[in-house]
């Protein structure tokens, strides 16, 4: 296919670089957008910044791109300090959330634009533009205008345009947020495939946790201008380091319990702890719904883990069951086949798988 795209092999001048952000801060008036942020993106890695609106993820990206100035801090790319460098000289490719493409240029002209600015001859420009379009699978649309192609196709063209200039870093600002769900999933995988093939250091901003978990090498969960946890997706999910991360990524049950001797006792069960240094005493355990299993209860006895089904939400392969335990509700997630004989009002008994759980000092709130 396009061997020039794997430039790590063919083009020694453009090898994967490491990106370092040190002590970045930015405020808008009285609002603190970024609070002394540190982040290192290793060469060739894709880091997804995940978080709610206003957490600072887009600000981080824009500071890296040079579209905003940091109040304090330093940005280093490939060992070179670029903090004072204007955006047009930073050699990064960016894909915006929407309205990326220039409406008066064809797809081909859009992709070749960066090369035109670099005074590359028109023959080389066209060839490179075509290669990039082949990379994203849109070479047949080269002579169409942006308003003639779909939203997903527009974003692919935007990606081709960003990569055409062989940037050192690829920046994606919620590129899939404006697209339909189905297109989003396809495009997400395609972006990841291309990123791996090209081997470019990438920063991907999103508010969709499924996206982040699916494509990233590491995920940085952000809140209020700080990174709460930066870790591979599996770790973010199964070993969240703060309550915010646990709640933002995936669903969770918050159950009252007591910590002692390295375990937390929740409704009569002892569960191991993620963090063994958790202080003893009352606490809230965060339990994933898929760690909760159900069985129909025909014995009629009551207990801390016996309750009544309130609702069943069918999600296709899995189903979510909300159970009323009397003093609280708990959410369980199980394969649909296991839930087939459950109805609203069924009595069930639950077990909690002994996965290590995170404990937070906040008071428990009724889970969803």
């Amino acid at each position: 296919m396009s061997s020039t795209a794997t430039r790590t092999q063919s083009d020694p001048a453009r090898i994967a670089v490491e990106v370092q952000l040190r002590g970045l801060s930015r405020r808008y008036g009285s609002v603190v957008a970024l609070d002394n942020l540190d982040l290192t993106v290793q060469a060739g890695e894709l880091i997804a910044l995940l978080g709610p609106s206003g957490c600072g993820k887009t600000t981080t990206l824009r500071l890296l791109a040079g579209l905003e100035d940091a109040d304090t801090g330093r940005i280093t790319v490939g060992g070179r300090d670029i903090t004072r460098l204007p955006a047009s000289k930073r050699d990064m490719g960016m894909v915006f959330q929407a309205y990326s493409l220039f409406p008066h240029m064809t797809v081909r002209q859009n992709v070749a634009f960066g090369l035109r600015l670099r005074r590359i001859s028109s023959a080389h420009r066209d060839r490179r533009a075509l290669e990039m379009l082949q990379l994203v699978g849109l070479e047949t649309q080269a002579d169409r205008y942006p308003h003639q192609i779909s939203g997903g196709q527009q974003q692919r063209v935007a990606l081709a345009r960003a990569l055409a200039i062989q940037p050192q870093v690829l920046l994606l600002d919620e590129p899939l947020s404006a697209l339909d769900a189905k297109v989003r999933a396809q495009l997400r995988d395609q972006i990841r495939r291309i990123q791996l093939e090209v081997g470019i250091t990438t920063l991907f901003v999103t508010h969709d946790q499924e996206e982040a978990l699916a494509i990233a090498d590491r995920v940085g969960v952000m809140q209020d201008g700080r990174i709460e946890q930066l870790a591979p997706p599996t770790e973010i999910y199964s070993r969240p380091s703060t309550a915010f991360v646990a709640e933002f990524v995936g669903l969770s049950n918050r159950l009252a319990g007591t910590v002692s001797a390295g375990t937390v006792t929740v409704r009569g069960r002892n569960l191991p702890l993620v963090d063994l240094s958790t202080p003893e005493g009352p606490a809230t355990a965060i339990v994933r719904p898929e760690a909760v299993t159900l069985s129909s209860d025909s014995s009629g006895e009551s207990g801390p883990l016996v309750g009544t089904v309130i609702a069943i939400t069918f999600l296709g392969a899995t189903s979510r069951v909300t159970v009323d335990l009397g003093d609280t509700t708990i959410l369980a997630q199980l394969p649909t086949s296991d839930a087939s004989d459950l109805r609203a009002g069924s009595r069930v008994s639950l077990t909690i798988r002994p996965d290590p759980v995170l404990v937070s000092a906040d008071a428990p709130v009724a889970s969803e």
Partner: protein
Amino acid sequence: MTAAATTETGARPPRAGRRSAPTWVGTVPFLAYTGVFLLLPTGIVIWNAFRRPTGGFTFSNISALNTSAVRTLFVGSLELCVISALIGAVLGAILAYAVASGRQDGVVRRLYLAGSGVLAQFGGVTLAFAFLATIGPTSGILFHASWFYDFPWGIALIYIYFQIPLMVLVFLPAIDGLKVQWREAAENLGGSTWHYWRYIGGPLLTPAFLGATLLLFANALSAYATIVAWEDQIAYVVPQQIGVALISEVGLVNFNQADALAFGMIVMVVIVMSGYFLLQRRAARWQR
């Protein structure tokens, strides 16, 4: 949305034994009104342009326009229109850019937009008086402009006064339509400010700018009150002469010359406005 598709629940049942009138009847008052007071006069002008005073079809009214006096009038109109449209367009574009690049909600923007709304209408007799008071050769309080009564520059200055606000009103939406992402994408790809305007901003704004300039041209072409208040003895432009032909003080009203001249104006304005509408459509295509 035809009358047939009215099967809503709870709607009143149709009145028995009475057929309701077709819905287009509702447009009749409007059609009648514009028919009599807009289309009919226009038709009269076009019709009379080709009629002899005694009746019968003729081209002679039109060919009678081919005198050097009338040609001078048309050239005068063109001069005044081109000057005031071009200068008004450029200055108006600059002001529009200044307004557009500020805060959407700001006081300045609202003030200038409201001001443009008023000033674009502020023409005619009062405007001429205002300029007389400012730079009139004998009475101006700012200074006395000896060139105030020179054609075309004296009157062009007055025209520019209402051309600029009109330009702001018409061109500002186009500038607002430039998405910030295009600017940022251009920068990100390595372009400087100049590159952005040369390859992106400029090409995108050009149809809207040209269209707006044409609109200004048509606006200047049609202006009558201002130039009559400025100078009512000598006719420099076509509208003035039309007025003269209509109000001849001798008592003889030269309808046919008025009609012929008016017809000439219609032709010019229609050409210009068609250009304007075409360019507007072109510009709108990219605003999607």
